[in-house]
């Protein structure tokens, strides 16, 4: 399997007046064709910024985003091809669709814009096909609807259909089901999984919901971020049952479960501090050291840990664990 998209020591800083926020710090990750990778972490960890850099919406301030080995920001005219190959689905189904366009227009616009259809007839046929792929059948029921006439789940499906108009090879789904009713989320995720199986689309699924990450990326990998850095990457079943990094352990143990017996008897990892550091004032050395139960003075607060290959596809950035 070749690497479809590669993050090579990618960083992104933002300026707030005189202050510098390092939203993403030296992240390297290879995503292979046909794979599902979940990027998980809490708010402020840099996962959305990373997703946007992969989608070409933000330019890294350090490092390179590679598509089939090529730096996307050095592609020149081919960048347009890249933007078609990589699509993004946003979190808010109420904000990502133009409220004054009907579904037929929302979906046919990219078809015409990119010269993917020759005439209206071909466009209409393709629209029906797309709506079928996202399980919005019969298509006639939806073509002339406005976004406000659709439910949250239906709007997300239209967003996915829109992303599919340009035959993408890679889809970044940024919290794509978070604002959708719980009872509908699974069918959306199953639909996305079918896109992978039937159309060969590669996915980066960004979420703070570990249970969803486990479900969606069960055959794939999970990458955990904390305050801008990648701290663990592993095959999903492994990460969920045997996390290595103290932060991953804390996260997994902290998640409340929809099962009273399990959740009330679960062992929780105790952290040294409840305070989350601000991105404007990051701790020295390992970002997690002020809260980490394995903290070793003189080491963890001095040196930034690198991602180390632990074998069996597991990578972890922790001095103490990798000793």
């Amino acid at each position, binding site marked *: 399997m070749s690497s479809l998209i590669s993050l090579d020591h990618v960083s992104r800083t933002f300026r707030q007046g005189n202050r510098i926020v390092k939203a993403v710090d030296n992240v390297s990750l290879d995503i292979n064709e046909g794979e599902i990778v979940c990027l998980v972490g809490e708010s402020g960890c840099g996962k959305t910024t990373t997703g946007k850099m992969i989608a070409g919406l933000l330019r890294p301030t350090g490092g390179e985003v590679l598509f089939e080995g090529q730096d996307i920001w050095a592609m020149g005219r081919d960048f347009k091809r890249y933007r078609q190959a990589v699509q993004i689905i946003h979190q808010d189904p109420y904000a990502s669709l133009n409220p004054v366009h009907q579904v037929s227009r929302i979906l046919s616009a990219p078809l015409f814009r990119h010269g993917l259809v020759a005439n209206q007839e071909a466009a209409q046929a393709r629209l029906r096909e797309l709506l079928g792929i996202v399980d919005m059948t019969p298509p006639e029921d939806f073509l002339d609807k406005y976004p406000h006439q659709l439910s949250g789940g239906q709007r997300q499906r239209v967003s996915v259909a829109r992303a599919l108009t340009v035959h993408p090879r890679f889809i970044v789904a940024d919290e794509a089901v978070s604002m959708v009713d719980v009872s509908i989320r699974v069918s959306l995720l199953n639909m996305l999984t079918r896109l992978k199986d039937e159309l060969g689309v590669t996915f980066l699924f960004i979420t703070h919901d570990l249970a969803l990450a486990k479900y969606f990326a069960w055959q794939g990998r999970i990458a955990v971020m904390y305050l801008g850095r990648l701290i663990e990457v592993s095959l999903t079943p492994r990460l969920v049952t045997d996390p290595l990094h103290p932060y991953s352990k804390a996260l997994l143990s*902290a998640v409340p479960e929809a099962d009273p017996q399990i959740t009330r008897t679960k062992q929780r990892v105790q952290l040294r501090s409840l305070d989350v550091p601000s991105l404007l004032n990051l701790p020295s050395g390992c970002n997690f050291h002020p809260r980490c139960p394995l903290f070793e003075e003189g080491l963890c607060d001095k040196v930034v840990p690198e991602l180390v290959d632990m074998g069996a596809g597991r990578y972890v950035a922790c001095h103490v664990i990798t000793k």
Partner: protein
Amino acid sequence: MSDVIARSAATKQSLFPPENLKPAPKAADTTLTVQNLSVDYLGRRGLVRAVRDVSFDLAHGETLSLIGESGSGKTTLGLTLIRLLPRAARIREGGRIIYRRDGDEFDVLALKPEELRHFRWKECAMVFQSALNALNPVLRIAEQFEDTARAHGTSRTQETRQRALELLRLVKLDPERVLRSYPHELSGGMRQRVLFAMSLLLDPQLIILDEPTTALDILTQRAIIDILRQLRQEMKFSLLFISHDLSLAAELADRVATMYAGAIVEIGNVYETFYHPQHPYTMGLIKAVPTVTGDMQALASISGSPPDLVNLPPGCKFHPRCPYATDRCREEEPTLVAVAPGHLAACWYSEVSSSTFQVAS
């Protein structure tokens, strides 16, 4: 068929006799008894039936979780309990919200403005979901505590300050630092904790939380859940929390009530509801939520979408999405009946559906 519907609409009261609605707690130990509460909104398209004939009890020191998704009516119900509904809302005749404390009891809906003021915050505090916006941005936290205390008749600043320090410590915040801060200087999780602390200021007997941990990170959420548990143990208030999050209910609730299309469709003890659900909607919800612990499960969504509250379908409101629906379901709306001691469900076929339910664990 329309005759059946017309008839049942005309005799609505007699279709839902109070005898059917008797959850576990006995009257003397009950803090709150809600009876036949119905709330409509006057919308542009017509009457939105947000809450339909809801009845339940909340015992002293008990935690009841109201679970529902968008359009279930849970937030409207919460707002009705402390009468904070918008002007377009109408509470129907015949509904009662009985509040009991130390042998005294009264109907919250019958309170006069001054009495209502006393009730709010002193007897019953409510923390909303956009808690992040509930704090006054131009006042320091210390002033907000004073403001709240003064608004409810207490003007002893020193005493308020001491109590505020104590409460902030209880929610694991650095009390001096937080009291000095403005809301924008605190993170979302910290603001939520400040609001919990403030809700306890006047020692209420009943606390209502609406989506208490939505938009909070996993670790912050964990801290809040543990704090709630501890506070409840120490201060023994009754807690009603409203959420779409089943895992919260699994963590904290003594009893769980699921709401659909404005009505309670199931209510029972938390273990019973999760392991032996009796209503297809509850079953659908449980089967739709993955757990991190344990093996990979087979999950399933509930097909279809929530109903249009202006044009509710006849019969059982869940029937268009229910795999067990029959003609009877399409014509007659089921009432909440006891399926086991302390466990009620509104379904004609709960015996059939519950016997096929399997918990993937």
